């Protein structure tokens, strides 16, 4: 159960949004909508606890996420515009490192398999530096195949992906939701995701 309580966000002299309140039950898919610059990225970072709201609270399982920061962060995956892929490591090393960092260490076999599913089977031995834009994105997204955390925050995850990859990712998210997970995401290109409960959170008109 994720609850936003009259959240507000301020950047410079500009109030991006304020008074955002909502409650989301497990299994809900939340699409954060809005034009460029309305504050979607800012909202996701705020929910993840990477920045502090100008006002308001975020409750996770009834607990204030800022006070119970450790417990909250143990439950979430955040993938932003920058995807945290190390140029010098190959995809397998990257995936294993990012999983380990989130306290979900995985075996090399599992990493290979997940990357294979993302269509990177042939590129496992290359440094990520030489991968194409879409391939790098896939390396980051492979993380979603091996995580068991309930709350996903995905900022434009479909960017730079080709249609097959988009479909595969939509499928992954669908399965996550079916298993009772929750997902907040942003996208400018509408993508059909299988979800029993799907809501939109629409941001400002500025």
């Amino acid at each position: 159960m994720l609850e936003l309580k009259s959240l507000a966000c301020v950047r410079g002299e500009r109030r991006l949004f304020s008074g955002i309140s909502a409650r989301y039950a497990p299994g809900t898919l939340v699409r954060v909508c809005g034009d460029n610059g309305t504050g979607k990225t800012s909202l996701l970072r705020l929910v993840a606890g990477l920045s502090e709201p100008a006002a308001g609270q975020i409750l996770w399982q009834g607990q204030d996420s800022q006070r119970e920061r450790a417990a909250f962060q143990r439950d979430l995956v955040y993938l932003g515009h920058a995807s945290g892929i190390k140029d010098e490591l190959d995809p397998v090393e990257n995936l294993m490192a990012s999983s380990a960092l989130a306290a979900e260490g995985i075996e090399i076999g599992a990493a290979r398999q997940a990357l294979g599913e993302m269509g990177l089977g042939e590129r496992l031995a290359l440094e990520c530096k030489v991968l194409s834009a879409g391939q790098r994105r896939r390396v980051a997204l492979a993380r979603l195949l091996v995580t068991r955390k309930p709350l996903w925050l995905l900022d434009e995850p479909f960017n730079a992906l080709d249609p097959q990859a988009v479909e595969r990712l939509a499928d992954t998210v669908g399965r996550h939701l079916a298993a009772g997970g929750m997902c907040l995401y942003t996208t400018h290109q509408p993508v059909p995701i299988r979800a029993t409960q799907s809501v939109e959170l629409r941001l400002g008109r500025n």
Partner: protein
Amino acid sequence: MTRINWFKYASPATFFPLAGRLIPWFRALAVLFGVAGLYVGFFVAPTDFQQGEAYRIIFLHVPAAWMSMFLYMLMALYAGLGLVFNTRLSSMMARAVAPTGALFTFLALWTGSMWGRPMWGTYWVWDARLTSELILLFLYFGYMALVAAIDDPRRGDRAGGVLALVGAVNVPIIYFSVKWWNTLHQGSSINLTRAPSMAAMMLWGMLLMALCFWMYSIAVILARVQCVIAEREQRSAWLQELAAGEA
């Protein structure tokens, strides 16, 4: 018993006019003490039997050195309060203190080296006290450079706070350097347990000048903090409304 609500004065909006009312008083006191101090220092205090007239630099040097260290501690204290309790005013105070602190540090260095020429035959030696005082200057500069480099004022305040606290270790080093290392520079001659070992008039001159520097610092810092408040609050006036509405 009525409790004064001190937190009222921790809000920039109430502090601003208060500061405005105090500044002229402190300015006047600074002039007063300054005139008295200089008079005592240059006309009343006797010529030193060892150093001749050059010693009179002491009336600027020692108070400036005191202020340089004291203001750093003050800045670190404010910055730390701002960091821990997220009080806006204390961070603004920290920012306002820094340039004055740097000024006095520079003054101490400068008068010190002017004095060093007749006393030690050189403007500068790399002894522990001089060096640590120089480091203090660099620390002030570092603090100012850091907060200036960060556009977001809140982030700048907090980053500066961490730095100011880390740098605070230097102050005891300056203070005790003459004890810990065997150096050219004078040891402490004013001591709470012992009677002062210098002429009473010299002591008076120094104290008056110290008071003058104090008053000057307070006046300037208050004026500067007013500028900081004005600059920031005009931007975030509506932000306060927002916070008030939400509370």
